[in-house]
């Protein structure tokens, strides 16, 4: 399913979750202003690290993590980092930095990599550990697979002290850090289960010169479907309103699944698969989709009005395509939504509608009776794609 329904925690939120499960993390404070960051640094003492808080990796390379030796440096780094735009390693984003995490610098002896992830193929959790932590763990996994130890958690066995000890030993963890590393893996595993996580990644997990084992980073992804039993985490989600596009913000408020794209043809489909397929055939017909918008199963008139409001708020959109094949969604509801929306939302753009599936005949009947201007009904998906591309070209020429 695209996009994935998941909540990515910021590093400091992940560390707070870790701390709640007994995982050692450095002492730190969160701040959203330069003054606040400097105050935090003064409290914590120097050297301290000022870290951009964004829901994506690659912060270090982007200049979002800096060490401050004194108050002047703390101020300089906080100024540079707050407000910075950071893109992910695969071009995701940009994500604007609204908060920094200021933490005590650690006395690092060694950097490890640890993660627990849901392995969809095996239908098991997978624990991974490597003594070669740091940024290039993917490269290491490819070039030297033995350097990254992977162990599935057997469903009837779980992951306790014995499994963790074996993992640490197989990964070649230094003897004086082995027990503490294993302990941390068990605590991470418990945190994973108790918070309905689908990913916990610690990179780096560090061994200090005093042989302490600390989680220096925290990437935690929580299953959105389980937020009903994690009120504290659900509250965090409320705080993430920083979608880069106005339309994405609007869609989120209205409970629609919307992704902004670069083109000029607004698209609504029902079901992620059909919606993606609609984008593909519009592109093949020579058009450029402006968005992905999955109205979801069982869409009612209200959702259609919301969807049209979001799509038409994008000034680039010159024509709209609705591609609906109803299963749980009923065609008459979609038609009612379109008719109602045409009264409430000021739409002067051409709208191509292709309606098939459950109650589609009733829906098509309603649309025919309403006789809306600028509405084009097409029988097939390819026909509808071609029509909307033609209309978009006519509009923009």
């Amino acid at each position, binding site marked *: *399913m*695209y*996009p*994935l*329904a998941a909540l*990515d925690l910021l590093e400091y939120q992940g560390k707070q979750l870790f701390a709640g499960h007994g995982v050692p993390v450095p002492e730190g404070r969160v701040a959203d202003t330069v003054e606040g960051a400097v105050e935090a640094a003064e409290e914590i003492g120097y050297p301290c690290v000022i870290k951009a808080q964004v829901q*994506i*990796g690659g912060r270090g390379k982007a200049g979002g993590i800096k060490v401050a030796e004194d108050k002047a440096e703390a101020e300089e780094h906080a100024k540079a980092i707050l407000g910075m735009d950071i893109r*992910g390693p*695969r*071009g*995701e984003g940009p994500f604007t930095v609204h908060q920094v995490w200021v933490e005590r610098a650690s006395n690092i002896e060694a950097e490890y990599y640890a*993660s627990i*992830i849901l*392995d*969809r*193929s095996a*239908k098991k*959790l*997978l624990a991974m550990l490597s003594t070669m932590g740091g940024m290039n*763990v*993917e490269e290491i*996994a490819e070039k030297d697979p033995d350097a*990254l130890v*992977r162990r599935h958690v057997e*469903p009837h066995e779980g992951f306790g002290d014995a499994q963790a000890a074996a993992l640490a030993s197989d990964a070649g963890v230094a003897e004086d850090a082995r027990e503490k590393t294993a302990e941390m893996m068990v605590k991470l595993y418990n945190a994973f289960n108790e918070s*309905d996580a*689908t*990913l916990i*990644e610690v*990179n780096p997990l560090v061994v200090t010169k005093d042989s302490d084992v600390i989680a220096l980073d925290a*990437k935690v992804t929580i*299953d959105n*479907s*389980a937020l009903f039993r994690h009120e504290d985490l659900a509250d965090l989600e409320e705080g993430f309103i920083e979608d880069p596009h106005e339309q994405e913000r609007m869609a989120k408020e209205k409970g629609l699944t919307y*992704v902004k*794209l670069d083109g000029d043809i607004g698209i609504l489909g*029902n*079901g*992620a*698969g*059909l919606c*993606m*397929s609609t*984008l*593909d055939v519009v*592109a*093949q017909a020579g058009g450029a989709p402006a968005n*992905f918008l999955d109205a979801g*199963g069982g869409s009612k008139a209200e959702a259609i009005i919301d969807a049209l409001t979001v799509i038409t708020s994008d000034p680039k959109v010159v024509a709209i395509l609705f591609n609906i*094949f*109803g*299963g*749980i*969604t009923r065609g008459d509801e979609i038609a009612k939504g379109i008719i109602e929306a045409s009264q409430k939302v000021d739409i002067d753009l051409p709208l191509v509608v292709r309606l*098939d*599936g*459950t109650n589609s005949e009733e829906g098509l009947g309603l649309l025919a009776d309403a006789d809306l201007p600028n509405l084009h009904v097409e029988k*097939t*998906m390819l026909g509808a794609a071609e029509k909307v591309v033609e209309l978009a070209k006519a509009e923009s020429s």
Partner: protein
Amino acid sequence: MSIIVGEETKLVISGLTGREGSFHGLRNRDYGTDVVAGVTPKKGGQDVEGIPIFDTIKEAVDERGANTSMIFVPARFAAASINEAIDAGIGTVIAITEHIPVHDMLQTYWKARDAGVRLIGPNCPGVLSPGKANVGIIPAQFFEQGSIGVVSKSGTLTYQIGNELKQAGLGNSSIVGIGGDPIVGSDFIDILTLFEEDAETELIVMVGEIGGDAEERAAEFIAEHVSKPVVAYIAGFTAPPGKQMGHAGAIISGSSGTAEAKKQALEAQGIRVGKSPTETAQLAAETIGAKA
């Protein structure tokens, strides 16, 4: 023959008294599916248009001989309902409910597997064997009885392809929506195995989409274990890449999960991949024609 549901299906529906449950449950019965019972705790003794309601699935099995269960209950109770069906001795469970927590499904997946229960879904449109039985939300009027098996991650895309096949004059043995959740009870390989063994199925259409590596694994499986022709469709060539947190996901999948990567993996095994749902149906028609 058909797979998973057919004339032998005796269906019990958990959540039949709900609005969507009754809408689709009654449609399933109207289609000819033998709907023997509904289950809603504390509503035992009532009925929905003549279908008796029981408090538990066990009662529906004991008193009405139910052998297949459809789960239509809200997400937070759905895994418990699937578990209840497994414990009641149901052989096939089809879970329509979406947004079931992944951790719940992880446990339920292994419970079903250990008990030898076939689980389809969750977050799926169900299974339709045209002319025989419909269990789920697939609009049956768009499909004909025939010899093409369809297996798909996506609901609406499945209807689209089935409808295209119908327009190309082709029918289906069974249409199986496996669902797109991270943990599904049956994946492409499980269903491909059933179609391979099904005498009525002559060709298989596999409908995938971006994300995960189920299509890539299915491509290898087809090359080794499926003798029947397979035609595929993949959605999501124009979709932007999803945000990826950390490295663990990339390390374990061994595939980028893009539509292009999936297409290449399938074509490398000699499987034809349609550009659109329409072209996919045309490829299926050509292949069946060439076979005949």
